[in-house]
């Protein structure tokens, strides 16, 4: 699937919220067109890591390279132009605008490429009837589809999807993943997913975070459930320490 080129290279990255280190000296390399699922308990630092990759949260230490170019200092909007696009947690559409306007504003500000409002509509046919509706009035599944389409029209080389299935009905989750499957091989994807089964079946690489560090990094076809569960709760490391 992957070409062997390194799309994202994160070296010794630290992400802070005040005194708290949400991401602790984390290094990670993701190949071009690789599909990565990022899992971990609440508070593990997943969203902070995604925001750091997107440029929405500063790296207190460390650096980030995109296809060999250092992008550590680039603000979020310039990272979009470089090719890193985040579909944020909670979808966060522009509620007062129509779906079409949501897509157009992303298309205007993002990179030029194969993805346009029209091709995004082909990939997500469920949004076509919604184009002229205000984004604020959509259901959760519709919002997620629009949010991903909005990220696509910016023509990302690295697509970051935070909390893909959170708050969606199982049917809506199926629809979203079907569309995502069509993107395989066209871009690098990093997906934060709470549903372990879903993450294991969709991704070719599974990364588990706990308390700001990488606990596990491997092929979901090879990893056992037990290994993943242990990593999820950070069990092997923190013997004796209790987390309320």
């Amino acid at each position: 699937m992957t070409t062997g080129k390194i799309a994202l290279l994160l070296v010794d990255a630290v992400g802070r919220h005040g005194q708290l280190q949400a991401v602790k000296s984390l290094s990670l390399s993701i190949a071009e067109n690789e599909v990565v699922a990022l899992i971990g308990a609440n508070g593990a630092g997943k969203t902070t890591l995604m925001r750091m990759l997107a440029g929405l949260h500063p790296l207190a230490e460390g650096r980030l390279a995109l296809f060999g170019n250092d992008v550590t200092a680039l603000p979020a909007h310039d990272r979009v132009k470089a090719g890193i696009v985040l579909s944020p947690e909670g979808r966060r559409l522009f509620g007062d605008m129509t779906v079409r306007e949501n897509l157009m504003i992303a298309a205007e500000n993002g990179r030029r490429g194969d993805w346009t409002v029209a091709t995004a509509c082909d990939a997500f046919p469920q949004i076509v009837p919604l184009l002229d509706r205000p984004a604020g009035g959509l259901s959760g599944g519709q919002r997620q589809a629009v949010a991903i389409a909005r990220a696509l029209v910016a023509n990302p080389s690295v697509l970051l999807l935070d909390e893909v299935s959170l708050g969606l009905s199982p049917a809506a989750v199926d629809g979203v993943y079907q569309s995502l499957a069509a993107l395989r091989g066209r871009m690098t994807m990093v997906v934060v997913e709470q549903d372990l089964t879903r993450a294991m079946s969709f991704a070719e690489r599974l990364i588990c975070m706990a308390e700001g560090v990488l606990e596990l990094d491997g092929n979901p076809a090879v990893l056992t459930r037990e290994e993943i569960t242990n990593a999820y709760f950070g069990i092997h490391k923190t013997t004796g320490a209790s987390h309320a």
Partner: protein
Amino acid sequence: MTKTPLLGMASADRRLIWLAASALAVLAILPAFGSALAVDKLTYLFILIMFATMWNLLAGYAGLVSVGQQAFVGLGGYAMVRMVDAGLPPFPAIFIAALCTGVVAWAMSWFVLRMKAGEFAIATWVIAEAIRAMVSFDPIIQGETGTSITALNAYAPEMRRLTIYLLALATTALMVWGSWKLLQGRTGAEAQAIRDDEEAAASVGISTFQVKQRIYILASIGCAVAGTLWLASAITFQPRTGFGVQWSVFMLFMVLVGGIGTFIGPILGALLFFALQEIFGDFGAWYLAGVGIVAILFALYLPRGIVGLWLDKGRDEPLTMRKRLGI
């Protein structure tokens, strides 16, 4: 981005634009017939419309709730005092002073725009107070006493009144037209995205800082022009008045009552505020209580302001800035 020719607009909107154009024409020749008092009052109304339009750009479209716009009202006035003192004729000074204020706004923008909403509101106010204190130290201002632009007395009162009236009318028309153009364009769409969700706006590649900075500087220059025009008609500059928080309170009142984030809301709000001042202004402190009650009633029952009356009936917002991205 498509242009919206007049023909493509709703007929109600077209009528509104013709109405505005006719009003402008009538107002332009009105001083030939109207009394001096009417001319003075209308000048004040224009200044209110400018303030409301500028504050709506900030809060209604860029999500920047500033309670420190008096910094630019006062600074504009102060710059004008200084320039006239240095020998510049007062009428050009009105505009040059406002542009200089824009430079200060540019410098301030680098740090105030990095703050979150609540911090921004408070910081802008604190900065306004700090600038007021500094300006009071200037010997020419004579502390709280203030000073007068005596150079304006060189003009005959009639001629001065007429000039300020026409300048205020032209500037108001320019500002309303300019903000229309701005909001119809890309900046307007981007500002609306930022207001809806700043982080999502950054995630789709909008340079949120630049958009906010552009609007912040424009709104600051706008408030400064309104301030210098007001000073030109009032002649006396006092730091307490020029930098008074009442300016921001007026702006906030007009925009909220008219309809925040709508195009004609602030103009309607300015008209209502002007009417309230005219009718109840003589009641002193009770007048302020009345204005407060009106604000509370609007907040409780008409949170979308006067324009909300249209929207509640299911009608389209007049001269809406939505759909500007339509293809």
